């Protein structure tokens, strides 16, 4: 199994470390031809506007969008969530995203999250993070803050978090992606 990590900009190495800890091989995705032969892809945290522009420049936006549509497992964190939720970007999640939804950097925060079906909370790191104002079927929320903001969701082959599981030691979201979406698919 090989999981690609989109490596145009952002927290790439952090995701590589987490995926390797899950026991899977990784491949950095820098150009169109790199998309061949992967079993899933991670879109890391970074600046979503920058990553989107680089995807367009590398002529990768439409092919990646089609791969996501055709069922390629994809895990997007923060900027990755933004790109997957935007209809004119990767359009992989039926929902409405609010970029920088919590405010500027001084409002960035850490908090304990209650994840549906998990006995222990997950420590969420939110950095100029987006959130989802709503998700619609077939997408379903996985983590909702007490005020109703949706910060993790899944739709078939697409998993998104507004926070950064790549910045903490807890590997449960990466493991969920590998076990339930990448392996569960076959």
């Amino acid at each position: 199994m090989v999981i690609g990590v989109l490596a145009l900009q952002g927290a790439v190495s952090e995701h590589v470390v987490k995926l390797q800890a899950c026991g899977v091989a990784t491949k950095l995705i820098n150009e169109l031809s790199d998309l061949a032969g992967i079993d899933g892809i991670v879109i890391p945290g970074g600046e979503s506007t920058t990553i989107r522009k680089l995807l367009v420049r590398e002529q990768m936006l439409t092919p990646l969008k089609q791969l996501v549509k055709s069922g390629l497992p994809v895990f997007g964190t923060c900027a990755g969530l933004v790109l997957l939720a935007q209809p004119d970007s990767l359009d992989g999640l039926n929902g409405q995203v609010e970029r920088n939804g919590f405010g500027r950097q001084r409002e960035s925060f850490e908090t304990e999250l209650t994840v549906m079906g998990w006995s222990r909370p997950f420590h969420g790191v939110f950095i100029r993070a987006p959130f989802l104002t709503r998700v619609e079927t077939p997408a379903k929320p996985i983590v909702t803050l007490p005020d109703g903001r949706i910060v993790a969701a899944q739709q078939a082959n697409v998993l998104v978090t507004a926070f950064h599981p790549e910045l903490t030691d807890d590997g449960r979201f990466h493991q969920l992606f590998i076990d339930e979406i990448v392996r569960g698919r076959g």
Partner: protein
Amino acid sequence: MTQTGTTLVKRGMAQMQKGGVIMDVANVEQARVAEAAGAVAVMALERVPSDIRAAGGVARMSDPAMIKAIEAAVTIPVMAKARIGHLAEARILEAIGVDYIDESEVLTPADDNYHINKTKFTVPFVCGCRNLGEALRRIGEGASMLRTKGEPGTGNIIEAVRHMEKVNEQIAHVQAANEDQLISIARDLRAPYELVQEVHETGKLPVINFAAGGVSTPADAALMMNLDADGIFVGSGIFKSENPAKFAKAIVTATAHPTDWDLIARVSENLGNPMKGIEISTLSEDQKMASRGV
């Protein structure tokens, strides 16, 4: 339970900027050009370093109104510079919501004994360094991100190269050293012992380190990325060039693909003239910004 301004969110913010280009902009129009080119952030300041050199006098924090106008104009993060040691300028920048403060030698230092105690702020700071001692002292004061000092406003890459190579050589030295030598190394570096110990164990800095000071072409950006910079600051290099929009876009592409030489060759074609630049040896000691705030 919910905490802001933690080490993790401050350092993490810099991690999200990796592989990107942060551009100096002097007004809303330039900020929009930078964002359209794919900058990961803009540094709002009234005069780019080459203009600060030309103007002389005391260089201070920019007008808050100018910074707020840029914050309103772009969705990418906005950084701004405070004078070294000027905690009041830094508090003002924090109050208007800048996303990162550069405690910068490009401005005239306000304190030649102490840097700002950056641990007390919610907003994260980036600081310049020429060697591992400076790097670790700044981290000890609470910097969440580093950059080379280079020699700002010269369009000459040699100082940034020296500083990046120096830091990396010293990291390798600390990592290879015997544990018993670390106290003496910390003394020689004039660096906090705990941070020297951390570098010894991990073989890397605990924060992201960008290249800055003299980057003016896509090739300069690629050079610094190949010397293991985590990303690039461009000061005067974009808006003092002949075609700012083209230079900005080309530098972003080169930074994202620093070993794709065919691509970098392609984006380097027909860019027009880069900023003119200054040979370092023609600067007198008091004209050098890099020796401020050690």
